[in-house]
């Protein structure tokens, strides 16, 4: 059986996967999109040689990216999802009945098309009438958004060091804050707590320049290098650790208990930001 070797330059490990079948391999305007089939994980979506999701375990990432701030927020109605062309995050947001509108901003239309074709269980929410698709750079969309009526922004990007880095700048966070309501919240993935602590700190510190409340939680993602994946969240008013709406949605991993224990314990968090954590 042939193997696929992941090429993430900053991962000190190299993951490889058995390839049963190559289902798709094309270059889009922005990246190379590959879909393979693996005996354990099922179909896998790979962008520029980095695994984005697998059929078998994608829910860990999508649930944890979405539901934490969606439950910390008292009544999220309008949501922006940036990236996540596969539709997994949109699917999770739609589980919240009070959501009225999702702006789904993806730079690469091809990712949406590929996901619709190969990952129907992930992408089925994209065509929901509450979803408005915008094919453009997320940073630009936020910049053009004039009214402050958004309750939550979720960034579901590819590797930060690549072309997604415009979604991690002070400028972006500032314009994003200004399109949120006073109770608005934001979340983005922020790389491996284990391997990329320097990046976690960098993102946390950049967010702290813009938001009064910034926090950090983690989730186990088997197919992302370092596994112990971090999520940086920020808020204009409320803390993100508290659950303000009782979870009533159907999930495989996320629940109220997971919500509470996913946050980095305060002492560890303090050490991280003081840069006294070294491993």
């Amino acid at each position, binding site marked *: 059986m042939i193997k696929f070797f992941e*090429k993430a*330059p*900053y991962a*000190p490990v190299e993951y490889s996967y058995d390839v049963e079948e190559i289902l798709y391999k094309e270059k889009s305007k922005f990246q190379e999109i590959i879909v393979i089939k693996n005996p354990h994980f099922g179909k896998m979506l790979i962008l520029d040689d980095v695994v984005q999701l697998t059929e078998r375990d994608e829910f860990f990432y999508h649930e944890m990216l979405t539901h934490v701030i969606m439950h910390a927020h008292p009544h999220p109605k309008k949501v922006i999802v940036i990236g996540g062309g596969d539709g997994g995050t949109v699917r999770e947001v739609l589980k919240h009945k009070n959501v009225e509108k999702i702006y789904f901003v993806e730079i690469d239309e091809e990712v949406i098309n590929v996901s619709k074709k190969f990952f129907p269980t992930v992408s089925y929410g994209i065509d929901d009438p509450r979803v408005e698709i915008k094919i453009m750079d997320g940073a630009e969309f936020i910049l053009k958004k004039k009214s402050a009526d958004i309750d939550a922004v979720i960034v579901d990007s590819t590797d*930060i*060091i690549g*072309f997604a*880095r*415009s979604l*991690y*700048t002070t*400028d972006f966070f500032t314009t994003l804050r200004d399109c949120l309501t006073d109770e608005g919240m934001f979340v983005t993935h922020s*790389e491996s707590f284990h391997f*990329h602590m*320097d*990046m976690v*700190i*960098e993102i946390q*510190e950049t967010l*702290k*320049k813009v938001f009064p409340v910034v926090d950090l939680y983690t989730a186990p993602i088997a197919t992302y290098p370092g596994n112990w994946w971090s999520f940086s969240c920020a808020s204009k008013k409320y803390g993100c650790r508290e659950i303000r709406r009782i979870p009533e949605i159907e999930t495989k991993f996320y629940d109220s208990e997971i919500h509470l224990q996913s946050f980095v314990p305060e002492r560890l968090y303090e050490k991280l930001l003081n*840069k006294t954590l070294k491993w």
Partner: protein
Amino acid sequence: MLRTFKVEKFHASIIPESTLFKVLKYLDKEVIETPFLLIDSEMIKEKVSMIGRHIRNSKIFYAVKANPDIEILKFLNELNLGFEISSEGELEILSSLGVEPERIISSNPVKSLKFLKMAAKYGIHFFSYDSVDEVDKLTKVVPHCNVYVRLSVPNEGSEWPLSKKFGVELDEAATLLTYAKDKGLNPVGITFHVGSQCTNVYNWNIALDKAKALWELAERNKIKLTLLNIGGGYPIKYTKNVVSIETIEKNVNNLIYDKFPKNIEIHIEPGRAVVGEAGIFVATVIGKAQRSDEEWLYIDIGVFNGLMESVGGIKYSYIVESYKHTKYKKRYTIAGPSCDSFDVIDKNVTLPEPDTGNLILILSSGAYTVSYASEFNGFSIPKTILIQRKGKR
């Protein structure tokens, strides 16, 4: 504008992701006029926190020659670092920052009278020497100052050896210590330099053995020394991993503990180790050519305006902006912008192909680059820009 840089696996061992991230963010939003040197101040801070950590009773004196940029010096001054200088120019900058004389030493064994007078007036009182003539100068200009003699030690294994120009052998060093004492100076210690970018850990072993022998000779001559200045030499990562500061220092600390009195004071003079890895040169590809079998890449920084050390054998790592697939790489000779045929930085460098006008990043280039630059052929000296954490701390 979002540029695409080809980041490869080996880059990850040279530049931390967070530093590269900051550099790329900077290059995305600014109007770019190359060449310039970008410095990640956080990385400097981290390096400073690592140096001296494993050597008991040590003080750090940043070798200003490595990069005398005013912003860098300001930043280091805020970290309360000491400074090692050699000239009135360097002293002038430190004086403009209000650095206390107690935090300044001069380890250049042969100093100009003009500099010495200025240093004396400023209140500096630690000087190295390795000749009778220097003692005579010091006696005249800075009577009663503290002096430490420069011992020559092997420089094998360091990429930038220095030993031949300075330093004396054991017997002469002992004589010079006595001579300084007779002249009314205060001989306090010994210094040596294992060579810059020293990747051979054993150089410190040999140097410390020799220093120990001199220490005993001095004792026999009724001179009680208290200071050991171990110079610099800590290597940085250019194209490959190097022995860590921690490994070097733990070894040095053990040796000092075994060989010298327990209350001995240690001075360290790092330059490259402080600013080298924190610096990334940003240059532009100004032309390409094929000459017989060789592919040439011309960039707007070269031997004369920043990359002088390439002539001495320092090889850098490059990250190029490229819109071609990483699979198609070429082997390049990289040359600077001047008309001088000596202006060649590197040969046999395999890179993804950039276009003219694309950027090229030169990693680990914070030390001994801009400080060597000249305006030869009308190319101006590159600016140094510090990426600092703004706003809340």
